[in-house]
């Protein structure tokens, strides 16, 4: 393809997605569109997988059977979300094994939020309410993303996510209405998770140089700041309803804007955690590697079983 033809194809592609048409795996797409999406979808998949770790930590210590089955089901859902997303990346020509190896070696990124620790049961409430809540805001937007398989994965994920947030909020509600010590525990979790949750939407619009292209290609439909504001506006009343205080002295309803004003985010902390210096970066990566190694015998057993079955079928058909 000549350079001119290529530019022409790219212009046609842009008009095509701008008209709200979806791109499917075999369609022509700019190489950068493919690369951007493989990176974004695989990072998203890794986040679902690593996201299981801080919560798995509490499955055996959940305070009741009801909470335990809910948490188990949630963590199982997150594994499924990882799988839907790896599958979507595969439709663009990526091999899942390569993606997983990049995660295990520490080369690939995942959401920084999972590098924070979960020292108390209230953290499980805060994660469901705030972390899943923030993820939902992003994922609802991605249900309308321009790449068909990614959008369809998001629709499935969003259907499953709403229970995650509700179970988290329910935990917070119960603690906030409990003994003073329980309420304190809930408040402490909110204090620790609030700011990192706001960081989940990524840098401010002016510090997010790749966003413009993603918006043009309809991969992203809303800017980081828009999504963050939406999340704050929705979540603050939920905190107030259960008598918890959002840890931001600058938080104030702005009648004119119709939104909450909020304080400065500590972006240095955000970049530090991305750089690998969060409280749990090493621990998470280690746990993920151990889990992968411990699962090896299951994968091998599945292979051995499949081989045995294939052999048996062959013998039966030749005997018949």
């Amino acid at each position, binding site marked *: 393809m000549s350079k001119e033809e290529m530019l022409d194809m790219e212009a046609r592609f842009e008009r095509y997605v701008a008209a709200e048409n979806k791109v499917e795996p075999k369609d022509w797409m700019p190489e950068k569109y493919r690369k951007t999406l493989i990176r974004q979808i695989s990072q998203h998949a890794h986040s679902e997988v690593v996201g299981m770790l801080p919560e798995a930590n509490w499955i055996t210590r959940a305070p009741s059977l009801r909470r335990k089955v809910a948490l188990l089901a949630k963590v199982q859902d997150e594994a499924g979300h990882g799988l839907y997303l790896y599958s979507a990346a595969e439709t663009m020509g990526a*091999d899942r094994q390569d993606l997983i190896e990049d995660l295990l070696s520490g080369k690939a990124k995942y959401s920084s939020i999972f590098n924070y620790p979960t020292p108390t049961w209230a953290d499980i409430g805060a994660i469901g309410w705030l972390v899943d809540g923030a993820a939902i805001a992003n994922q609802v937007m991605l249900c309308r993303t321009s790449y068909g398989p990614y959008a369809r994965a998001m629709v499935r994920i969003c259907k499953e996510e709403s229970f995650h947030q509700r179970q988290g909020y329910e935990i917070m509600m119960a603690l906030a209405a409990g003994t003073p010590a329980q309420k304190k525990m809930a408040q402490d979790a909110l204090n620790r998770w609030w700011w990192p949750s706001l960081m989940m939407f990524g840098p401010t619009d002016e510090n997010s140089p790749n966003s413009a292209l993603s918006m043009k290609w309809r991969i992203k439909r809303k800017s980081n700041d828009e999504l963050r504001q939406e999340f704050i506006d929705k979540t603050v009343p939920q905190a107030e309803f259960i008598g918890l205080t959002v840890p931001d002295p600058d938080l104030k309803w702005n009648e004119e804007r119709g939104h909450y004003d909020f304080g400065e985010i500590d972006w240095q902390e955000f970049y530090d955690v991305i750089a690998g210096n969060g409280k749990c970066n090493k621990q998470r990566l280690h746990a993920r590697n151990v889990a992968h190694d411990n699962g090896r015998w299951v994968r091998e057993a599945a292979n051995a079983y499949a081989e045995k079955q294939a052999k048996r079928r062959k013998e039966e058909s030749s005997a018949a």
Partner: protein
Amino acid sequence: MSNNKDNWKIWEIFIRSKNGISHKHVGSLHAPDAEIAIKNARDVYTRRSEGISIWVVPSDQITASKPDEKEQLFAPADDKVYRHPTFYHIPDEIGHM
């Protein structure tokens, strides 16, 4: 049949949500054989009673029409308005037909 680097095939999964409705493509997964593909599909795609029947098909066994043949394949249907009921004028007094 070609395998992936993890040595497992990709399977396309189709689920029938209830009798009376066709199987519908829901996504894909990796598995060493059809039997395990069905077990995995049960765990991944029917955790909330989404189905009563599962089909699994190796991805590389599907032959698809090519996107650049779209015109050639489907354009001939575009100018045949007489294949649609609205092409025919029936007086209102006749009611629904």
